[in-house]
């Protein structure tokens, strides 16, 4: 028996990374320069690389890594190469907590960048706050990240679901007045916050609200209900796979509503890939152009199809570092996020500390890939403040029909975004 007990000790010790005490909150002192050396800075993230949420999201970190490689090959930021550690949490909150604790306590990352998912990331915000670890550019449109008092370390990234829905609702009210609106929404904060935004603008027009469960790929009952409600417009607060499922299921029912899709589910490249095969077998009426043309979507990052200078840069990086990964909005998301973080590192200056990084975010000087400004300031930690609206034409190209708009998450108006926006050359991270 004693042998067994000693075995336990040995096994546990084998997994022990070192006996340092710093980094734990009880030590009382925040380590301002954890993960930073003269030649490198270590950052981490949690992503669903496997499991139910992996489809659609597993490529974000690929895009981010490509940008970091590009930056590092250009000499890094202030001479520091960015070491990006991706931990798989399988979209399981328990594992999120475990891997984030590992990143913070064992790997001692300087900052957490772009942690993905509301159910997952919401469980580590308090911990990161307590440990004093910057928690920036969270990959989720939930409202919780914007809480400078309660969670001073946390900053959002993408436009929140409420703001975006207000903009889409405004578009519906103006471009499709008097039409009955149905909503298909994921049964979590994506749907709840999105509906809150719609309700601020077009509450009276909504005739049916159908939730879907991401674990149940059969949305026939929901689309049937939407059709029965007489909805002429269907707003999709969905992830891409469910946008595609909704479009296909509507086609299956012979139901032809105007689809209006929030940015998380409106990735035309991904949708094209998902819907590609059906036209081949079932005829032109279910070809990709037939299914997607006319779809209205929202975006806040430059479109993959556009000749935006940022898109040009991202295409170059893509071609050089990850040519075998399809260049989707999801990949661009990861790239834009990484680029924004690199900018913040540059802004923080040569003597990098965690406080300086936070200050760089709150400076309001970060402008970049996104089509609308960040809300970042001392008072707000919300990410992008608005979105543009596009439609898909019969050649599956996107056309912007409403230039970038900004709004707040309350009852404020929807107004055009400022037109000024830095180009890659102005940001000049490399070279």
């Amino acid at each position, binding site marked *: 028996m004693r042998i067994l007990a000693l075995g336990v000790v040995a096994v546990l010790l084998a997994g022990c990374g070192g006996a340092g005490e710093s980094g734990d909150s009880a030590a009382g002192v925040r380590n301002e320069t954890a993960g930073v050396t003269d030649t490198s800075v270590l950052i981490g993230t949690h992503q669903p*690389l*496997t*499991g*139910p949420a*992996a*489809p*659609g999201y*597993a*490529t974000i970190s690929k895009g981010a890594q490509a940008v970091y490689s590009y930056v590092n090959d250009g000499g890094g930021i202030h001479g520091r190469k960015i070491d990006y550690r991706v931990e798989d949490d399988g979209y399981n909150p328990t594992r999120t907590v475990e891997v984030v604790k590992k990143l913070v306590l064992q790997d001692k990352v300087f900052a957490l960048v772009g942690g993905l998912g509301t159910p997952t990331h919401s469980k580590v915000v308090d911990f990161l706050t307590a440990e004093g670890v910057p928690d920036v550019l969270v990959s989720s449109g939930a409202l919780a990240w914007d809480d400078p008092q309660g969670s001073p370390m946390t900053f959002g990234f993408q436009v929140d679901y409420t703001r975006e829905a207000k903009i889409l609702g405004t578009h519906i009210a103006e471009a499709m007045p008097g039409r009955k609106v149905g909503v298909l929404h994921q*049964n979590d904060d994506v749907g709840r916050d999105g509906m809150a935004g719609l309700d601020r603008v077009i509450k009276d027009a909504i005739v049916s609200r159908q*939730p*879907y*469960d991401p*674990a*149940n*790929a*059969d*949305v*026939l*009952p*929901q689309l*049937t*209900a939407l*059709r*029965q409600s007489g909805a002429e417009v269907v707003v999709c607060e969905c992830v891409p*796979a469910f946008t*595609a*499922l909704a479009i*296909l299921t509507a*086609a*299956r*029912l*012979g139901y032809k509503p105007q689809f209006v899709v929030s940015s998380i589910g409106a990735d035309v490249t991904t949708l094209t*890939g*998902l*819907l*590609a*095969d*059906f036209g*081949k*077998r*079932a*005829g032109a*009426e*279910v070809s990709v152009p037939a299914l997607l043309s006319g779809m209205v979507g929202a975006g806040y990052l430059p479109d993959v199809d556009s000749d935006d200078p940022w898109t040009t840069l991202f295409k170059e990086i893509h071609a050089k570092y990850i040519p075998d990964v399809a260049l989707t909005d999801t990949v661009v998301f990861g790239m834009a996020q990484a680029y924004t973080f690199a900018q913040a590192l540059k802004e923080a200056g040569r003597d990098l500390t965690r406080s300086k990084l936070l200050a760089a975010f709150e400076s309001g000087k970060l402008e970049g890939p996104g089509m609308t400004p960040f809300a970042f300031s001392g008072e707000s930690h919300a990410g992008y403040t608005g979105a543009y609206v596009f439609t898909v034409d019969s050649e599956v190209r996107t056309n912007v029909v409403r230039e970038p708009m900004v709004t707040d998450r309350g009852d404020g108006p929807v107004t055009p975004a400022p037109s000024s926006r830095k180009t890659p050359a102005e940001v000049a991270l490399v070279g």
Partner: protein
Amino acid sequence: MPDLLTLAMGGLTNGAVYAALGLALVIIFRATRVVNFAQPALALVCAYLAFTVNRATGGYWLGLLVALVAGAVLGALTERLLIRPLRSRGNELAPVIVTLGLLLVLQAVCGMIWSAEPRSFPYAFDFRGAFSPASVFVVVTVVVVAGAVLLLFGATPLGLRLRAAALRPDVAGLLGVRVGLMLTIGWVLAAVVGALAGVLAAPPFLSPTVLDTVFVYALTAAVIGGLDNPVGTILGGFVLGVALSFVSGLLGPELVTLAALAVLVLVLSLRPHGLFGSSVARRV
């Protein structure tokens, strides 16, 4: 008033797939008293192979054929390499864990080869309309295959051997039946039916975890119907499919899994061996 007909037809299509995968489980359970937890993964590999062939040739039927052949090979390999060594063990937990392990390995292999991204998988026919050709194809195929399997078991010498080997392996051996071979054939047959279920369940999107819920409902259908009763399982699959479609449409999609649990608890508390299952006589 909800569109009950559409809900029913949608449920029938889903139920056909549960029935087919459930039938695969029942065939193996009857032959070897093992619940094959690797069944969804075996079917998944076959569906991905069909996908690859589809992409390469643009045709549907060659892909289906490849999937069925792959199913046969995988079924035989699984039985010979993983299940047979456990037969003499007499431990009902061992095959559970081994098939679970295989499930993890095969799902991971699919992820490694085809990535976690969903891939569009075509329907066999036009999928539009309440009674779309694609839905009719799924339902008819499953009914025909189930009928063929029942005919094979009930009316052919091979079926007689299979049943004898499953019911009384010791006696079957004494009657000249090659019991080991019959068990392998049972697994092959089940894996082929499973592969078919996988290909039918794959549209519109295929990803490594897509068959997990299908498997849970297939197992539910088999348990409701009685694990050793193919007819009960097929009925169970269709009934469950329609019931869950109604629950999703009338009460909300979040209640679907709870409804499946409720049905299961109800059935098993009335009949611990399923609606049509045979109970083993109590030994005194």
